[in-house]
């Protein structure tokens, strides 16, 4: 990881938040490039370890949306 480049993992439920991110793109809304959407079948699938592992890897932020 370089110091100046932020990375944020956004865990998104495919039924709502992932679709919302699709729509945001369709509407050409702009957001920081740091955000990397990871699709989940349901935010219920988000294991707290998954979030912690991300920080362990050096990810700067974790976002959960669903």
């Amino acid at each position, binding site marked *: 990881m370089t110091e100046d480049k932020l990375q944020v993992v956004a865990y998104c439920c495919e039924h709502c938040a992932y679709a919302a991110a699709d*729509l945001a793109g*369709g*509407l050409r809304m702009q957001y920081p*490039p740091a955000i990397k959407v*990871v699709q989940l079948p349901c935010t*219920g699938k988000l294991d707290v370890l998954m979030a912690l592992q991300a920080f362990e890897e050096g990810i700067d932020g974790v976002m959960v949306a669903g």
Partner: protein
Amino acid sequence: MTSKNPAKEGGHTIDAPSRPVGAVLVVGGGIAGIQAALDLADQGFKVHLVEKKSAIGGHMAQLDKTFPTNDCAMCNISPKLVNTGRHLNIDIHTDTEVLDINGEAGNFGVTLRRNPRYIDVTKCVGCGDCAAVCPVSLPDLYEEGLADRKAAYRLYSQAVPAAYAIEKRGVAPCRDACPAGQRAQGYIALIAEGRYKEALRVIKEDNPFPSVCGRTCHHPCEGHCSRAPIDGAVGIMSLKRFVVDFAEAYGREPVEPAARTRPEWVAIVGAGPAGLTAAHDLAKMGYGVTVYEALPVAGGMMRVGIPAHRLPKGVLQQDIDDILALGVVLKTNTPIEDPAALLDEGYDAVCLATGISSRDHSLGLEGEDSEGVLSAATFLRKINLGEPITTGDRVAVIGGGITALDAASVARRLGASEVYVALDRPRGELPAYQKEIEAAEAEGIHMLERTTAMRILSENGKVAGVEMAETGKGMEVDEQGRRRPKIKPGSEFTLDVDTVIGTVGQFSDLNFLDERFDDLGVDKNTLASEIPGLFVIGGRKTGASFIIEAVALGHRVATSIHRHLQGEALEQPEAPAPPVVKFSRQELAEKVKRGEIILQPPAEPALLPMEERVTSFREVVLGLTERQARAEAQRCLQCGICAECLACEYACGADAIDHNMVEQEEQLQVGAVVLAPGFQVYHAELSEEYGYGRYPNVITALQFERLLSASGPTMGHVQRPSDGGTPKRIAFLQCVGSRDQSHDYCSAVCCMYATKEAIMAKEHEPDLDIHVFMMDMRAFSKGYWSYYERAQDKYGVQYTRCRISTLHEDPNSDDLILHYQDETGALLDERFDMVVLSVGMEISESVRQLGQRLGVELDEYGFCHTVQFNPLETSRPGIYAVGPFREPKDIPESVVEASGAAAAAAGRIGASRFTLTTVPEFPPELEVGGQDPRIGVFVCHCGSNIAGFLDVAEVAEYAAALPNVVHAETNLYSCSQDSIEHITEQVAELGLNRVVVASCTPLTHQPLFQDSIRAAGLNPYLFEMANIRNQCSWVHSDDWDVATDKAKELVRMAIARAALLEPQHTVDVPVEKTALVVGGGVGGMTAALSLAEQGFPVHLVEKQDELGGNLRHVYTTTESEKPPQAVLGQLVSQVQAHPDISVHLESTVADSSGFMGNFKSTIRGANGGQIEVSHGATILATGAQEYRGPEYGYGTDARIVTQQEFEEALSEGNDIPDSVVMIQCVGPADQFCSRICCTVALKNALALKAIKPEAEVTILFRDIRTYGFKERLYTEAREKGVIFVRYDDEHRPEVSANGTLEVRAWDPTLQQALALEPDMVVLSMPVVPHDDAHDLAALFKVPLDADGFFLEAHVKLRPVDFSSDGVFMAGMAHYPKLLDETMIQAQAAAARAARVLSQDTLKAGGQVAVVDEALCTGCLTCVRVCPFGIPLIKPDLTGVGNIVGAAFIEAAVCQGCGSCAAECPAGAIQLMHYTDAQMAAKVHALASPPSGFVPLEKVSVPEGETR
């Protein structure tokens, strides 16, 4: 990849004619149509879903949220849209209308009309490049006119099909009037946007002489311009000239030589406009072309007939040079006398395009051979060719055409001091335009109107004057047979001139040819002569009068020659022509009135100063400035909507645009029809008192819905249309277009949607004041009452019972002032920033006409009439009606009806299940276990959607270097048909065992690519997508490097996961094709019958000793077609007689276990005996009961009764009371609205009035909730004298029964207390769940809501499903409902159950949770967290440390959400396809990019792309 599966073996073997058609037509692609289509297709029928618009989705797709859960409407409908679009057995026919249906149930013939979409749905990939370049904007109706869209458009971003469409009304009148079909509206639209280069391209599509026609065309287009009658035609010709001049001034693009793709040579004789146009077209087609011209210059009459001050020679030469630049060979000074010889010389075809004869015709006047008499044509030719010519000082020109004026103005420029033009008719009747006459006059030329030359006077053989005479009215024929105007006797005079220039008609002839061609026959249509290969455009038969006509002829002959050379028939098949569209005077007047057209005269080009005109041949008209041209172009009314500028055609990389599409008729055969054409919202401008359409801040609720939507025109910000400001106070006016003089019904949804919109607006802007003005709050269904209370208590929405009769606008602030009376009678004026009209539902004229065409019975409003005991079938058997087409209703009720209609249709054609359906066919799966990953990466350009914002080639190159990747490439459109096949081929050829596509969203495109790799034998789970469009190119469109970099990261993450993907397999679990129906009331019986009629055996369990349930207590209904008890009797005997229904009376279900497709239940009979039944689906229709509580003294006095008891008493006819007080909303009705009580009370009140008209009935109520057509009962009751008194929570009625019965109440209108002494008090007791509802729910493991009714899986879209698969509900156990509503819901439950029962097997496995027993501690965490109640601890399994019992998850019903996997403390559960390792790999790949060498040979990028 699909094949028809033959009729299932072992099924019915019925002879073809008697077997119904196994297909269903569903009309209307809204939520009801979608639901019906899915339910039918899922149970083995072919479905044709017909939608008039370009995409399905209907009104629901326009909504922001849905009540009462405030769920996002689009999130709910979108998966259904995708499923419908991808369903193998649903054909979606968009842009299509049903014209006719003939035949009868089981075998209907359907005629459809498919309207042209101008974009091929099968080719369009939805990239939107067409819309990006489209110059035409129009109000976006999906956004209810609050935003604009392009003529090339997609209905909304999530639309299915995703293909774009082009809105075109037809051919614009300007194009229609042009002989060459010039797309004037197209280039005008581009000029309006400043896109001049493209405008020139459009012009040259139809016309190789833009410079010439921009100056000298007779422009019939302008004469037909829709704008002409209002404030003058658009200056089409001037605009054309502007484009050419602009290109000339700022650098036009050189014309590239046309590619010679064909061996043939064509000779053209004559280099006039027709010949050169033909040469141009043929050269572009790839032929070799030589043009022969007798004169020393090319151009024909354009060159020699038009003086330079109107058409400068250089301008003409520009057009000619562009044609020659294509590779056309020009041979001047080469007269051809024998065109046939050219054929012998080796030309494959010859075209004679010789135009106007150079010979002079006689004027027919005495003295015309004197010296000084000239023909205008010769005169102009000599001038134009630079030959010497002299004229005298005084010149008379005879004739009123353009040539006469040209000759006169040339004579003036040559120095003649006096020039006269003799016009034999008044100005208005002349061939020359008024403007041209005026221009000539301005140059000092005298116009002699109504004057004709009689003879030419001469002296010494020289002209000495002309004897003239005035013309009178009418014409006569002279001795030589010429038509001449009549002369006014005695009007003769002599004009003193020394030169006479005569104009007579100019003709095209072929006299210059060899004599043998004198009688050459030519076909007028094909332009082919008798000599094969020789074509003629010229001569008397096929000549042209105007340049643009010559151009048109040139196009025609080129087409004919091409057909000849290709060996095709010369006669072109007749193609249907699109309509010509022009605005009527009335439409124009309305547009002016609405301010859509702002009157503005045409722009006038500047002219050369007068002093320079008559002294030179400089061009007189100077052309429009850029600013003038842009303004003039914006005057175009865009008659055709689509301008046919072809910008989309050039932009489309998928070759999907076809502007020549025309409407087509199609035929279908179906066995049944479901009509779900939906509603239209009331046109609020008809209620003039509210000023909609005049006051900008008065909007409709549907518009407000769009304002609230995050994807709407304001991105979800509530804004005032007038100034974009945030409103502070909003008023909702209810019942606009409902419950009024012209609508005797309630639209049933407006109270709740207004409440929803009020809540949502408050969520967006918490400081908003919202005030709803209504008559009654119709919160009549599940969860509505508490939603209404929440709006008041939590959000502070204010409700006032008052119907607003008018409002006015403050013109300074655009605020709106409401004048109203509050509930205490006080008159108030209140100011609002915005007013929302809660518009009701109507049937559109087109739906009404559809109903009439199909011959189904409609009511006066166009609603489809059905009967109460067969509520979904129209008057025409086999045709069903659902949704608001029957009666205004909400989404869940429409969905229920859709499923119900699916069951009814299936009952008719059940024998033909799976006869017309297809199943996917794939090759056997390849074994990839144990292989190292070999990943192929396909990076999509998506036209310009991705490649326009990031470096696609660089991403592919980067991917190629990543671990496990053996191949990476880019595709223009990865999802186009050829790319899909290409991916399949690449998988096979390169031995790929994992595939990553970097393109758009997996939500819409993943299944497509999965099929593509499956076709190559790969398991579909070996696929991963990187969404580099929606998540990258579109959101980082301003920074190429950032977007490219992020795309690489997304691809890297996808590849990392792909390497760990494993094949997943499903297994087939057999289905027990029997249903269990619990409850023998009308719901249970209807469901059982419906399933049995479809061929599924049913166990019907009823706890009482007879069938019938609550219907046994109903004696009258709101419609009196059949007495309810007769219907009940019939229903019971049908059920008892049906061989497939086993009725279990006095029985209950003691136990039930299993899962969808494989349940086992124990039925305990009256004598305690038990039987076990196996069933694939369960329907719970256990009903509910009338509340019997102590409120209002019930149970203390025989005169205080419930509605059910009152109805029974009325039916018996004993002791009919003279006066009755009814009290609504008793007891538990404080918590929820029991939906049916108002209707039942009115029904009984009317029944009493029918028996005893003088009886006094007073109804004490809170709101009268007669939704839909039930409103008519309310109206009728008031007409019959029933008295209605409202009470509120502070003033509840009181009943005392001390001897006399007394009811005390408070009348809010009179503001005083009332005391009534009726004979009887009737309490509207709400319907409440049975006492054992909780036990039943526990038995079947289904949830209840707070009021004890069954809780459906989803309030809006799964209204009869439980969240547990395979278990369904119907009737009052779900919520109180009326008889027809219960019957419909029961049919719906049957349809949902039939989806399961019609399958032989169900798929189990795939993306499901799997327990590793050896790690399981049996802690029950999974059992508790599963939202579907699926995991259980099985005692026969062994867990960690050999403990007895471990978790088990039935793969057949696991929904794959992964909640259990996330929560399992022992880590014993993995969700397949989302394993911990796969998820971790993504994050690791993001955080720790690999670095390494890029082996270039792994990259395959198309040539010409940058590396």
